[in-house]
């Protein structure tokens, strides 16, 4: 953490020079996000900053993936399945999480986190999301290549469903 009163430390200077995502690589210490904020709080904060209704995400890709998951899980209530973006948040910067799908399962919420990447070597932050999803280098756009867009949407949706089930979600829900 940095305070106006205590001045800029060497570690903070390094953080600013090299970029926040490399904080731990450079300093050899866990980032403030890990040291001072509980994971539940990190997710709760990001939920308060959503740019859209989590049951109706505005980006076409997120919307499509959520629809496929909803159908595959045979859900009946829209509110049961939610998508949250965390792009540009501390979850993105320090934990490599770009967004997550969340579902109510009995008395608890279970989530599957996703990191979008174009890097075939994947990220070596050591704090990966549940799914590191590789997208084409020239991007995904339904208007440019509809088939490719649907193929990738299905692929991510299937991975998310599988991970929901691995966390104890029953195969068929009403």
């Amino acid at each position, binding site marked *: 953490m940095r305070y106006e009163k205590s001045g800029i430390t060497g570690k903070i200077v390094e953080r600013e020079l090299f970029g926040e995502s490399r904080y731990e690589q450079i300093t050899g210490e866990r980032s403030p996000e890990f040291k001072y904020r509980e994971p539940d709080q990190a997710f709760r904060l990001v939920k308060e900053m959503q740019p859209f209704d989590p049951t109706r995400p505005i980006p076409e890709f997120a919307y499509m993936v959520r629809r496929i998951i909803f159908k595959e899980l045979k859900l009946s209530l829209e509110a049961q399945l939610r998508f949250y973006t965390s792009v540009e948040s501390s979850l993105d910067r320090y934990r490599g999480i770009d967004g997550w799908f969340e579902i109510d399962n009995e008395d608890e919420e279970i989530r599957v986190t996703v990191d979008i990447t174009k890097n075939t070597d994947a990220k070596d932050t050591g704090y990966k999301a549940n799914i590191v999803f590789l997208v084409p280098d020239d991007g*995904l756009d339904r208007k440019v290549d509809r088939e490719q867009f649907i193929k990738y949407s299905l692929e991510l949706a299937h991975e998310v469903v599988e991970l929901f089930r691995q966390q104890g979600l029953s195969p068929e829900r009403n």
Partner: protein
Amino acid sequence: MPTTEEKDRRAAKKLFGSINLPKYVGGLAPTPEQLAKLAVTPEEKFGKVHVYCAGCGFIDCFNQAGGEELSRGVGIPTPTDWKQKYFQVDRCEWCSPENPGYINPVLKEVKPQ
């Protein structure tokens, strides 16, 4: 030439959207509703102590280590009990991401009405 990280962030932003960061206003004070929240110790799973930003009005929550670090920043001993206590800062990482940090922290106490 964009770095790999920049390319990934652009791709993620296009496919997933991005969060709405709170805007810096400055000179804010907690509303009565916020004071009620600040007076109560957070649920254990969220942390130990609340942090109120007078820059954007946002309330965050830190664990014990965060509370100790902020106490050091203020130059006071770490309180043994966080009940009715919270930190106030002038800027936070959310409203001032270009200048990450918790600026000018002060320990405040919510007085019982």
